[in-house]
């Protein structure tokens, strides 16, 4: 497999509490990779390790390596801002800024120093189109992002993440706060987005993992129990615990 992201002997601690244990795996480029597992298994922490979002948490400590295109993003001297620009993130709760739709999408490019009006206009339109939101909002870009429905807000957050042209997009249970209709839209979107981006999604919802992903990892108590092609993991799980989880015997 051609690895876009790779972890080696990855361990993660909050203070004394070990949240991730010795995770070594490769995530393929231009594919959707899903992580499933019961609450508290460390799947969100794992996702946040991939763009160093845990850096700010006091007492957090990481061992091992996380490679993006073969370069360790935790190596000394690596610019965390650069890492996050390449590895974008969409959160569980839609969290648009209390700004206009336009300013939400333009936020990332502006932070990177793009101020030219015509270029910004172009980025905003391209990103909103990529997030399948353009047609719904093109006539009121000056409206607050918070005035949109939940599903639209989440697509706005996806557009906002895409506007900085990341290579990898992390999605932390992006549909858990949404209705089925909006969920469907976002799932369809993932299928389109993987042509240009590498998508890593954490989900509570096994059916969702089965529907949208090419690869699935099953995390339990901070360890990666099973990882493989989604079709394999769901039809012929190798580990008994995986089988028990996906057949709903615990979770």
């Amino acid at each position, binding site marked *: 497999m051609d690895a876009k992201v790779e972890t080696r002997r990855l361990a993660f601690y909050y203070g004394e509490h070990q949240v991730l244990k010795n995770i070594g795996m490769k995530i393929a480029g231009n594919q959707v990779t899903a992580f499933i597992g019961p609450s508290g298994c460390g799947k969100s922490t794992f996702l946040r390790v991939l763009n160093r979002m845990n850096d700010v948490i006091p007492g957090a400590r990481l061992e091992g390596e996380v490679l993006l295109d073969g370069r360790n993003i935790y190596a000394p001297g690596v610019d965390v801002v*650069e890492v*996050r620009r390449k590895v974008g993130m969409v959160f569980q709760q839609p969290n648009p800024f209390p700004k206009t739709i336009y300013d939400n999408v333009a936020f*990332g490019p502006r*932070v990177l120093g793009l101020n030219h009006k015509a270029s910004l206009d172009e980025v905003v339109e391209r990103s909103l189109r990529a997030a399948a939101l353009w047609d719904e909002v093109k006539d009121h870009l000056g409206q607050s992002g918070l005035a949109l429905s939940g599903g639209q807000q989440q697509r706005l957050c996806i557009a906002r993440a895409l506007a900085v042209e990341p290579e990898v997009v992390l999605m932390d249970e992006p549909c858990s706060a949404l209705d089925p209709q909006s969920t469907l839209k976002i799932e369809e979107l993932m299928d389109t987005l993987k042509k240009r981006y590498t998508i890593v999604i954490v989900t509570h919802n096994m059916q969702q993992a089965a529907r949208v992903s090419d690869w699935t990892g099953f995390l339990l108590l901070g360890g990666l129990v099973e990882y493989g092609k989604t079709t394999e993991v769901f039809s012929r799980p190798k580990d008994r615990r995986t089988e028990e989880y996906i057949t709903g015997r615990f979770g």
Partner: protein
Amino acid sequence: MSASTTQKLAMTGVWTGGAVTVLILLVVIGYVLVQGVPHVGWSFLTTEPKGGLEAEGGISTVIVTTIYLVAVTMGILIPLGVGAGIYLAEYAVDSRFTRIVRYGVETLAGVPSIVFGLFGFALFVTALSLNFSILAGALTLVCLLLPTLIRTSEEALKAVPRSHREAAFALGATKWQTIWRVVIPAAVPGIVTGVILCIGRAVEETACLYVTLGGSAGMPSSLLSGGRTLSLHVFYLATETNVFEKAMATGAVLIMTVIIINAITNFISHRYYARMAGGNQ
């Protein structure tokens, strides 16, 4: 006692408390306005006070001094207070030092204003030779109001949800970009509330200005001129002249000023908030 009786008693108690508060407020404001407003006219607002036991003339210089003093005070206070609030909310780790700073801020907020006045008199008026002046008064007011503004700004910034910060970080924003472009704009309504509170207190403050601003009724010509604000003027009129109605008239102007300041700032921050929080533009 049955639950429904307790409920009724509690409701009556709470309702009475609320009603009495509103009543006191209305009586005080109503009394001052009824007594004062008939004496407020265009000429009262635009002529200089002439002094004397009958306090001939109006309050034009006093209005100018008040505006001057509040502007200078806020000009120094806002950057300092909001800056310290940003430091405490965003940068300060929980250490011995920051605990001492917070404790100091809280203690200062409880110190009577005349004590700040004495401090201002000793430091600004005497030691720094600013004499009785707008600058000395403003610096003293800054010391008096800093704790309030620091606290309200800190609270407003802390109330901005963590999810906004995370979203900005995830887009590659630096800490300062996140604070400047996301956190502060979202905290503006809260910070504005703190600023209104401080403007109100600057306008109404007398004790600490009595010993730093002097009491000259003339038109201020520079930062180093002495002067008297509306509230000081009320004090002088009430204690040194025979024209109580002029004190009331000045008091009425004072009250209306505060009400207008509140209304304007509320309007601005509501509009700002409504625009950003959704709904129509």
